[in-house]
C-alpha cells in the first residue's frame, strides 16, 4: 500500500512548553485513520503542523511525499480540512463561504454541493454571524465533502452536530472510504472512530502511545468474562493473568483476562463444567480509559 501521510518523530515546542514530544504515524491510501486522545494531548497541534500552519521544531511530516511545511500549497490542492472550531467571516453567508472555499481549490459549486446542503439541512442564505456552532461546522463539512480531494482531515468535526447530522457525517465518511479516499479523523466520539476507522492512534501528552487496528489493540488488552460453572471456580482468582475477580456465588464470577491467557482459562473452565459463559472484548472506550488512567498514575488493577 502506498503511504499518503508519514509523520516521523515530529516535535513541536512553544517556548518552554513541549506540545509534541514524539509523534510518528503513517496513513496508507484508502485508509480511514482515527486519532484519539484527551483534551490538550496534542491532536490539533499535530494536525496544524501537518497543514503547515505550525513549523515543526524537529522531525518531519510528509503528505503525498511532499514536505508539510515547505510544499504546503501543493499539498493543500489535494486535501480538504475541517477544523474543530470553525470560525467564519461574520458578514459572509454560508453559501458564499462554501463557494469561496471550493474555488480556492480550483473547484466549483456542483450538484453534489446542493445535495450536501440539503442533507445537512443548512440555510446557505444566512449570514455566518447568525449561525450556531453546529451550523458553522456544517459549512466547513459541506465544503470539504463536495471537494474532490485525496486526503480528508477532520479535527473533531461532529462536536457541535446533533445525532441525525452525525449520522449524515458518518455516511459521508464511509462513502469516501468506499471511493478509496484517505481520511484522518480526530474525534472524541469513540463509537464513531470504532465504527469507521481502519487503524487508530492514541496520543497522550504529545506522544503517540499506541497505533494499530482495533483488533490489534484488543489483542493487547483484556476481555471481560461472565461465567457460571458446576464446580467452584475460586482457584482461578489467583492466576497472574486474571484480574478483578469478583464471585457472587462460589460457582458464579466476573473477571478480566489477559488476551494471551484466554485459551488456558477456557480450558480450565470447561473442566469445571460451564453452565453459562459470555466474553466481552474491550471497547475502544475501555482501551482509551485504560491508557488514559495509567498515565494519570492509577494502578491497572483498579480497572475493569
Amino acid at each position: 500500500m502506498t503511504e499518503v501521510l508519514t509523520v516521523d518523530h515530529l516535535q513541536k515546542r512553544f517556548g518552554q512548553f513541549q506540545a509534541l514530544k514524539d509523534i510518528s504515524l503513517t496513513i496508507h491510501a484508502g485508509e480511514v485513520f482515527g486519532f484519539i486522545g484527551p483534551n490538550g494531548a496534542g491532536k490539533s497541534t499535530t494536525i496544524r503542523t501537518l497543514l503547515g500552519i505550525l513549523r515543526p521544531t524537529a522531525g518531519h511530516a510528509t503528505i503525498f511525499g511532499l514536505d508539510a511545511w515547505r510544499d504546503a500549497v501543493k499539498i493543500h490542492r489535494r486535501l480538504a480540512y475541517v477544523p474543530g472550531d470553525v470560525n467564519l467571516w461574520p458578514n459572509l453567508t454560508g453559501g458564499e463561504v462554501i463557494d469561496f472555499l471550493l474555488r480556492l481549490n480550483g473547484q466549483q459549486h456542483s450538484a453534489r454541493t446542493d445535495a450536501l446542503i440539503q442533507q445537512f439541512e443548512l440555510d446557505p442564505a444566512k449570514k455566518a454571524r447568525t449561525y450556531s456552532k453546529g451550523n458553522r461546522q456544517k459549512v466547513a463539512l459541506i465544503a470539504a465533502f463536495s471537494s474532490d480531494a485525496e486526503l480528508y482531515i477532520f479535527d473533531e468535526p461532529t462536536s457541535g452536530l446533533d445525532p441525525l447530522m452525525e449520522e449524515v457525517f458518518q455516511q459521508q465518511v464511509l462513502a469516501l472510504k468506499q471511493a478509496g479516499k484517505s481520511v484522518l479523523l480526530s474525534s472524541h466520539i469513540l463509537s464513531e472512530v470504532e465504527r469507521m476507522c481502519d487503524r487508530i492512534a492514541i496520543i497522550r501528552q504529545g506522544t503517540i502511545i499506541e497505533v494499530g487496528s482495533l483488533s490489534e489493540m484488543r489483542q493487547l488488552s483484556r476481555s471481560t468474562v461472565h461465567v457460571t460453572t458446576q464446580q467452584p471456580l475460586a482457584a482461578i482468582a489467583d492466576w497472574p493473568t486474571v484480574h478483578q475477580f469478583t464471585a457472587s456465588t462460589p460457582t458464579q464470577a466476573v473477571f478480566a483476562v489477559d488476551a494471551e491467557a484466554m485459551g488456558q482459562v477456557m480450558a480450565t473452565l470447561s473442566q469445571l463444567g460451564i453452565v453459562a459463559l459470555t466474553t466481552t472484548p474491550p471497547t475502544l472506550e475501555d482501551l482509551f480509559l485504560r491508557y488514559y488512567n495509567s498515565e494519570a498514575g492509577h494502578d491497572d488493577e483498579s480497572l475493569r
Partner: protein
Amino acid sequence: MMTNRFANTWAILRLDLRHDWLKITLWIGGLAGLMVIAAGKFGGIYSTQQALVSIAETLKTPAMVALFGPFTATPPYAVAVIYGAEMMVFMGLFAAMMNVYFAVHATRAEEDSGTAELILARAVGRQSQLAAAMLELVLINVAAGCLEALGLQAANMAGSNAAGDWLFGLGLAAFGLMFGAAALLAAQVMSSARGATTLSYGWLGVTFIARMATDVANPDWTWWTFFGWIEKMGLYTTNRWLPVGLMLGFSVVVLAIAVTVAATRDIGAGIVSPRPGRRTARAWLQGPLTLLVRLERTSTLIWWLGLFILGAAYGSIFGTVGDLVKSNPMLAKLLGNSGVTAANHAVILSLANTLTVIFAVVATIPAVTTLLRLNTEERQGRLELLHAAPVSRLRLFSATVIQALVSGTAALALGVLGMAVAGNAVMTSPISLARFMRGFVGYWPALLVVCGLAALLVGCWPRWQRLIWLVPVYGVLSKYLGPMLNFPDWAQRLTPYGWVNAVPQHAVAWPPVAGMVALGVAFLVIAGIGYRRRDLTMN
C-alpha cells in the same frame, strides 16, 4: 423589576475595571500628561505680551479657527487664555476617542466574543452590563477630569485660576461622556463592535465638521453642533458652566435612549435584523484579495466618502481663509491686486499643507486596520480554513498589503481632491488641482512607510502590532500642535509625516520621496519574509 434588569451591576463594574485598569491608566495618564506638558511649554513660548498678541492674531484667522475653534478673548491676553483656546478642541477629540473605545469594548465587543452570554446566564440583570459600562465611563471621565484639573493647577500658568482649571478638566469629562453615551447607543443599534465603532466615529466626524463650518461662518450656530459646546466654556475668561450642563443633559438623554433600545432588542443582535444574503458567491469572489475586498467593502467606502467630505468641508472655508483684504483693508493698497492674490494663495497653501498631513494620518487608519486584520482574523480562527487551502502565505500577505495600500492611497487622494474641488468652488482666483495634488504625492510615501512599519510588526512581532497606532497619534500631535508648542526639529521628524517637505507650497522634493518609497518597500519585503517563516498565531 429593577433587580431583574440591573442585578449584580456592581460586580460587573468591578470585573470591567479589573479587566481594563491598565488601559484606563494609560489613557488617563496620557491625556493628563499631554495637557500638563503642553501647559508647561506654553509658559515658555508665550512669555512676552508681544508673543501673546501675535499668536492671538494668528488664532483669529479663519484657517486657525477651522483647526482650533474660535478665539473670542480680548486683550490683554494671558498664557492660560491662549492655552484654553488652542487645546480644547484637540483634547476633546482625544477624550471622545477614549470614550468610544471603552464604551464599545465594555458592551458590544463582549457580546461579539460570547463573554456576555456566559455572564448573562448568571444571576445578572439583562441590562447590568450596559449599566456597568455607563458607570465605568462616568468613573473614567471623572478620574480623567480631576487629574487634568489637578495637573493644570500644578502647572499654574500665568492667568490661570482654579475655576478655569476645574472647568477645563470637568468640561472634558462631560464632553467625553457625551460621546461615550452616543457610542453606548451605537452599540445597541449596530450588530457588531466594528459597526458600533464606525457609527460612533461617524457621529464624531459629523459634529466636528459641523462645528468647523459654523465656527467659520457664524459662531452662534455652533451652539447647535453638540461638539461646539466645548468651545463655549470661555476657558480662563468668562468660565461658563452652562455648556457643561448641556453636555451632561444630552448625555443623560442619550443614555436613556440606549437603555430603552437595549430593553427592546435581543442580546447579540442589533435593532436592525439581518437580512438573508446570497445563497451562492459572486463569480469574482475567487481568492484572498477578492475576499478582503468583499469583507472590507462597506468600511472602505465609508472611509473614502468620509475623507472626501472632510476634505470638502475644509476646502469650503478657503474662500474666507483666502480673503486677507477683508480682515486687513490696508493690504490691497500695499500689495496691489496681484500681490493680494499671491498672499491669499500663500495662506491657503500653507493651510493645505497642515490639512494634507491630517488627511495622510486619517488615511493611514483604514490601511493599518487592514494590515492588523491579518493577525486579528488569525487569532479569531477565521484563517484556519484559508491556510488549509492552496493559498501560500505570501499570497495572503500580499493580498492584505494590496488592499491596505489601495484603500489608504485612495482615501488620501480623495481627501486632497475634496479639499481642492470645494476650495476652488469658493475661491475667487482658483489654484490648479495639480498644485494641491503635490500634497498627495509628497505625503503618500509617508503613508507607505507607516504601512511598512505596521506590516513589519504584523509579520515579525505580532504581539506588539498595536504599537503602530503610536505613529499616527504622535504624527498628528507633532504636526498639528507641534508648531504651536515650538517642537524642536527632531521631535517633528520622529514620524515619517515629518520627513516630507512643505507641499503643496513648494515642489515635491524627489530625493526624500524616493528614499521613503525604498524604505517602505524594504519594510514590506522583510515583513513578508517574517510572515512566511513564523508560526501562525493561534486562538
